[in-house]
């Protein structure tokens, strides 16, 4: 099968000598051009799943394939992660251009002569003005920093973005801009995304399908329409009932 296929993946952590199951035989697919949201409370295993896909944590069982091939643990991957805190994932000493060029060089994606043009292209893609190329990340706004993090993720030409609470720390207005950016990247690049977020209102705007994790197990995978209109699992209903809505009365 094409796209990302997570099949019966388990992840275990050892804490104080005891083994804790963080993910319990989770199976999920993300096709190219598809946005799948992973929802659930803290500790449900959302980030662990994204990290397992990115090869950042070891799996105890199961397989993770992209287009039928195992995702390499080193080197260029068909997936790229974007985290909640852009400053935490950007080297403070590197300018925006240098941070992006680094990725192009590591993976030998462009000859030296083509680096500048590609960097400019990536900045344009994420809606950043060319001037930010020479700036260090701390001088940018939170939204701009997150755009840089996305540009950097896109530099390795992934087919699936793993967005781990990538919009959670942003102001509503910036979040609305980023929402549009993700939709645009999907239509321009045909890229897919595994979107992790606790904001279900955002999931409603963005996702084609929703996967619900509870204590390391998938309890529901449905189309976004089904999930929001007729959630099947009691835990899904509990999550939806808790969403703060604008009280208009």
């Amino acid at each position, binding site marked *: 099968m094409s796209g990302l296929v997570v099949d019966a993946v388990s992840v275990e952590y050892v804490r104080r000598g005891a083994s804790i199951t963080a993910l319990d035989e989770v199976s999920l697919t993300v096709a190219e051009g598809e946005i799948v949201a992973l929802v659930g409370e803290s500790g449900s295993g959302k980030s662990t799943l994204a990290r397992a896909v990115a090869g950042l944590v070891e799996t105890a069982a199961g397989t993770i394939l992209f287009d039928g091939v195992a995702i390499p643990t080193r080197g260029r991957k068909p997936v790229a992660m974007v985290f909640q805190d852009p400053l935490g994932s950007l080297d403070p000493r590197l300018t925006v251009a240098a941070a992006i060029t680094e990725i192009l060089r590591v993976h030998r994606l462009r000859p030296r002569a083509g680096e500048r043009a590609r960097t400019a292209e990536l900045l344009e893609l994420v809606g950043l003005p060319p001037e930010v190329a020479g700036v260090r990340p701390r001088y940018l706004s939170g939204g701009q920093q997150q755009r840089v993090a996305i540009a950097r993720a896109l530099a390795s030409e992934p087919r699936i973005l793993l967005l781990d609470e990538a919009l959670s720390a942003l102001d509503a207005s910036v979040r*609305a801009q980023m929402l549009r950016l993700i939709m645009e990247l999907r239509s321009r690049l045909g890229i897919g995304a595994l979107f992790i977020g606790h904001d279900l209102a955002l999931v409603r705007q963005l996702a084609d399908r929703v996967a619900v994790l509870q204590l390391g197990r998938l309890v529901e995978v449905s189309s976004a329409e089904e999930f929001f209109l007729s959630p099947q699992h009691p835990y899904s209903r509990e999550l939806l009932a808790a969403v703060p*809505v604008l*009280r208009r*009365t």
Partner: protein
Amino acid sequence: MRSALANPLSYGDVVVLPVPLAEPVGELDVRGLVVEVRRSGTWVPAVRDVSFRVGRGERVALIGESGSGKSLTAMAIARLLPDGARIADGAVHLDGVDLTRADEATLRAIRGRRIGYIFQNPMASMDPLVRVGIQAEEALLAHGLGDATARRERVVQLLERVGIRDAATRARDFPHQFSGGMRQRAMIAAALAASPSLLIADEPTTALDVTVQARVLDLVRELSTESGLSVLMITHDLAVASQLADRLVVMYAGRVLETVDVKIAVGRPHHPYTQALLQLVPDMRSPAALPEPIPGAAVPPWQAGDGCPFASRCRFAVPECRETPYTMRDVGAGHGSACIRELAARVPEAVR
């Protein structure tokens, strides 16, 4: 002297403490508050001429995006500003006492006792080496309220009240043994231990899961309804604010742009910035309508000039918006707005 029995803030059958109280009704009056921050060696304004009131038992949400000055305002009220920030002007009266002029002894007597403060990050504001129950007792101990047994009972009852099961045992846990939601609830118990009359909650639920968030909001609402606790909540989330608050104080670039009843805010707000915030709340019913981003980027308060700070991003702005000095005016009963344009002139577009 009043006995705690007569204290309107006692919680049901919670242990009676011999508590002397002057009229602590939790009325907060912020007038012309200016907070400055140090940037590259010079002091620049980050909160500019902020005025609002929180009446007894009222729940007010200070709402705005990053850099609006909402947290600095809250910290200035409790005189908890960090280094590099100072109150430059204005007054903050709590039950008639001007906190901006209060000495350290008065502030010590007020913090924890009259004002309970909940910070956004419960892990950063808890001591990892001290048992949760002992930390929750701190305000009682600091203010000499009750003996050891009474304090412990009071804390256990409060922990139960905030939904910590098996509270007597869990009070002996260390913070790391609590989940994030439990820690935040323990912080609420600690903030309420000495029966303050005003609770300041800075993004109390932002770091929490939605299910826990809903419980925490319910809890604060109940406590305030039951006991007349006044609440000042700081949030960037209009939906959350609408769940808890009676009134909104909308801040942008260090200024208050609108003070408004929450029902009017979600229906027919006056200031275009409040309207823009409203349009950013995603509609759960239909995924088709993406929330409309506000064009441009927020201006730092110290660069915002004397006119309306939102003018540069406002689709209704006219040259007068930048030229007319900022002032709040009444646009309805208990409804203030800094927008100089008549709502009627903008309404055909403004209505969602």
